[in-house]
């Protein structure tokens, strides 16, 4: 019994010592650049984001170009017989996906205001958008 606790203790100490050697976790950003309904790019991006998030590696989401249409409120895919994956965006908070960025210029170019169907969307100028993107280790674009 005593032996076991000593063993446990030594394992514990060992893990504490080894911790600094473990490589820092890589960060992932996903760029969404397509409008939601005519192709499956947005759905694929969402699936990947949720898979990463379920392994406690929540990615950051970037919306640029026609990708900003994915964030606009009051869309209804059922009218055109498309499964509305945009509703799943509401689960981001539950999945700890908290870094959501949208390009201000892309919104302006489409005459869109900042009325999104999810909360905590951060608007960035194209320079800030580029700089924020450059802080991630890996970037996937859809």
């Amino acid at each position: 019994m005593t032996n076991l606790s000593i063993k446990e203790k030594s394992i514990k100490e060992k893990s504490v010592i080894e911790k600094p050697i473990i490589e820092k976790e890589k960060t992932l950003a996903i760029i969404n650049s397509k409008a939601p309904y005519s192709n499956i790019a947005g759905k694929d991006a969402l699936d990947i984001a949720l898979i990463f998030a379920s392994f406690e590696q929540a990615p950051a989401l970037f919306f640029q170009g026609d990708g900003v249409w994915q964030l606009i409120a009051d869309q209804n895919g059922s009218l055109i017989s498309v499964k509305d994956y945009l509703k799943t965006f509401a689960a981001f908070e539950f999945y700890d996906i908290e870094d959501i960025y949208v390009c201000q210029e892309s919104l302006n170019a489409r005459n869109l205001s900042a009325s999104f169907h999810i909360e905590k969307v951060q608007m960035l100028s194209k320079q800030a958008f580029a700089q924020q993107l450059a802080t991630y280790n890996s970037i996937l674009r859809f």
Partner: protein
Amino acid sequence: MATLHIVRQSAFASNDLAQCISSLCRKDTVALIDDGCYNMQHSLIKSIDSKMDIQLHVLAKHAQARALAINETEFSKMNMENLVELTFSHDRVITWQ
């Protein structure tokens, strides 16, 4: 902290190059491959601010296959091995496709 931007689409057909250019940071590299080679002829390429210190590369075979002449004062020719090297010498890669 530089990013390698691999552009695979012609700007005459898609917005990818425009989005790529708006996402450039200083000292980034742009590599044109596949239909991205057509962008050598597109005015958008000239819109890149020279102060940004952006390097432009073109996959020579892909350009040659499309009968595109490479202006070597503007673009560096590369082969597949060079492209792989670029992916290692940069911190991250964005593929615009």
